[in-house]
């Protein structure tokens, strides 16, 4: 008996996932709960286990395809039925012509033109070899896959050619400098897949949905630097350490409570601004695969030390791509800490549908005018990008001013923080 294994509903809101990698092949025997396939949802990589013990009969959703919830990913079943399946596949593999025409309804023929598919090349799975809409879509997927493989092979070949060429040139190089023209430029085409695609889609959505403005300010961090130094000295015996991020989170929370429109979403459909009473702070993490934003919840109820530990935990999980779906949803605002990497300031793109993102940049010692004299102070830029549909410039500046004042006067921050 064959069982269609469909993409399950992995979590609230997710309606499609990309098949990243099959962990089994057609014909493989699997046991119940054996991992079958890795799928990429919104931002998490999820392994789906086999619902039964049996044989993998037919993989319906190939790696790289997007599957919708409820779509059949694979057909599982008992071994003896496999042969019949293969026979059937053979029968429908060649297009069937009737009176020199491919059988297909007018609507399907129009779809073929819209998809730029030569319908004569499509195998029809319908009665008497009719080409159906599903056949066209399957054909399109197969074409894309083939093209990608070709491009991959091409770029592999180019790389191989390049490396052999450079070896051959080694000896020449000892005599003369290689000509710039001697090395043909190589173009590598990397398929937009998995996390990269998720990032690309979300950034495009954010950039073209919400009109962004970025407001930049400079903060004197000298006092906070010395407070943190004193704290870390005290922590030394316990082996614990505190970073700047917990302070930033606390300052952000205080400012958010006073400026609720920055902890909000715009519900376009209903024409309403949704103000959130929970403060879920996304923390942008740079991973080898790309940007991932775990969400830190309940920051207002945690101590600075607890925050430090939680940030550490989430960052580590993100880097290993091991975050649970729940740990990546429900963000209401995002912090992007670019300090460790350098750079002066940036204009971050919103983590849509959030309406604000705070960029935190590297601290630098600078000569500045401090209390009427030139002094060397530790300065840091803050970049706040905000959705101008919801927030006006003045409000954003007042918000940044509040954060700035709290960071510049950590005594005040300690007094006010929850």
């Amino acid at each position: 008996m064959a069982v269609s294994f469909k993409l399950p509903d992995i979590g609230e809101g997710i309606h499609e996932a990309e098949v990243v990698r099959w962990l089994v092949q057609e014909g493989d025997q699997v046991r119940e709960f054996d991992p079958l396939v890795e799928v990429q949802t919104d931002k998490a990589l999820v392994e789906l286990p086999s619902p039964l013990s049996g044989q993998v009969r037919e993989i319906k959703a190939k790696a790289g395809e997007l599957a919708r919830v409820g779509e059949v990913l694979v057909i599982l079943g008992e071994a003896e039925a496999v042969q019949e399946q293969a026979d059937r596949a053979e029968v429908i593999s060649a297009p069937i012509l009737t009176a020199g025409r491919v059988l297909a309804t007018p609507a399907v023929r129009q779809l073929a033109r819209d998809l730029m598919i030569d319908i004569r090349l499509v195998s029809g799975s319908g009665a008497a070899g009719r080409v159906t809409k599903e056949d066209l879509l399957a054909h399109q997927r197969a074409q894309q896959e083939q093209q990608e493989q070709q491009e991959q092979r091409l770029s592999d070949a180019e790389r191989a050619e390049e490396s052999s060429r450079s070896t051959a040139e080694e000896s020449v190089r000892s005599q003369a400098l290689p000509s710039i023209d001697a090395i043909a430029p190589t173009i590598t085409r990397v398929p937009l897949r998995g996390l990269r695609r998720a990032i690309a889609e979300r950034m495009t959505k954010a950039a073209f949905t919400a009109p962004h403005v970025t407001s930049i300010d400079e903060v004197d961090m000298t006092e906070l630097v010395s407070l943190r130094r004193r704290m870390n000295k005290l922590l030394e015996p316990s082996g614990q350490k505190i970073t700047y991020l917990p302070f930033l989170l606390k300052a952000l929370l205080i400012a958010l409570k006073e400026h609720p429109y920055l902890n909000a979403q715009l519900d376009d459909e209903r024409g309403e601004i949704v103000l959130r009473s929970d403060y879920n702070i996304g923390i942008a993490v740079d991973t080898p695969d790309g940007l991932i934003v775990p969400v830190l919840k309940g920051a207002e109820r945690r101590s600075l030390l607890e925050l430090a530990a939680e940030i550490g935990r989430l960052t580590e999980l993100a880097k290993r791509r091991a975050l649970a779906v729940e740990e990546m949803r429900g963000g209401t605002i995002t912090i992007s800490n670019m300090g460790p990497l350098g750079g002066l300031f940036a204009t971050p793109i919103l983590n849509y549908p959030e309406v604000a993102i705070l960029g935190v940049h590297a601290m630098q010692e600078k000569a500045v005018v401090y209390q009427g004299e030139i002094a060397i102070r530790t300065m840091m830029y803050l970049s706040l990008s905000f959705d101008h549909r919801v927030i006006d410039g003045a409000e954003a500046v007042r918000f940044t001013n509040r954060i700035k004042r709290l960071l510049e006067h950590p005594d005040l921050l300690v007094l006010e923080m929850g």
Partner: protein
Amino acid sequence: MVVGDIAQNVQTVIIGAGPAGYVAAIRAAQLGLEVVLIERGEVGGICLHAGCISSKALIQAANAIGTLAQATEMGVELERHAFNMQKHQAWKASIQQKLTRGISALLAANGVTVVKGTALFMSEDRIAVETEQGMEYYRFEAGIIATGSRPQPLPNLPFDGLHILSSTEALRLTELPKRLLIIGGDCIGLELGTAFAKLGTEVIIACSESDILQGFDHSLVQIVKKNMRRAGITLLTQAEVCGHTIEGGTVCVTLQQGGAEKKVAADKVLVTVGRRPNTEGLDLDRVGLSTDEHGFLTTDHQGRTANRNLFAIGDVTHGPLLAHRASREGMIAAEAIAGRNSAKDMACMPTVLFTDPEIATVGLTEAEARAQGIAVTVGQFPFAASGRALTLGRGAGFCRIIAEQESRVVLGVHIVGAEASSLVGEAALAIEMGATLEDISLTLHPHPTLTETLMEAAADAQGIAIHVAKRR
């Protein structure tokens, strides 16, 4: 409206508001294009004013008289009946008026600007329209030529509008001719000839071919010929026109038939020997276009001409001169201009003849299929076995279906019989959808209707028809 030589910019101009042009205009407007539709006569074109609709009105009147004769047989006793041509023309005019107003309203509702006048191209992107008020000029991004066709004259029997008539003029007669000679054995001549004969005119049809309705299956034509004879129509085949004289209101046409000369006198002569496209006078050379020797324009799968910004649709292009082809081509051209991927890829094109009985065909004939090397299976159902056909008093005719033997996919349907024109729509859908004989025979068709004939024919092709005994 600006008068003078200042060109107005417009996205799409369409020349001709017949079934090709007005449909293209509406579709283009639906797709957001700004459209100027140029028409020298009235919207609706020949189809509405001197073709399909007009001839159907006449045929309907003629059939009414035929029905009256049958009614007597059915037990209806009639004292007297007569045909009043003037009243008929008034009735027909009221229909035409209704339809013309309808098209005008649709064009207006879609925001199409209709300009009444004669168009000619000035340059690659400019067109002039000679209107009653003077010349108007338009600069266009895309153009559609939909100027249609007109009756083809015979060199030795030119139209004079009085005695030697085209179909247009014959349809506008206010008096029934006593004796009508029709030159040409194609559908227009047969449709009008049969109608006039039923209305009381003595009709003689002369064609140069060996038989009427060239290109149609012989078995279909036989049934029509039988009814023509019954209506008193004289048929002269392989008869060539040699000359004519007009004397005292009578035309005497000399025909060459089998080496012998034959003189036929009639008070009216109707010449229906084909139609020619209206492509002269447009100054097509100014847009880089030329026609073939017969005046037709060559187009691609979307109706695009050699000039990428210009499309040609309907009777000015190669293909059967059919209003439904013209309308579809209008939609496709408009969609192509709007950037869509539409194409002329119809699996079949139905043809209907309003003869007595009607002939309607779609798809391949048995002979055509065999010529393509296709093994076919054929089913047929006689109207004489249809309860509905008999109660209509229309038991003549049959429905034939041709399918590919192995796949049973329907390739063609050929019907001769009452309401064949309406029945063929379902067959066209079946062919477009790639339906099989089973798809048709397993679909419930209502009883008692003529539609059962197609279902039974499909069953017969499988050897399982209920209402015919197994052949062989």
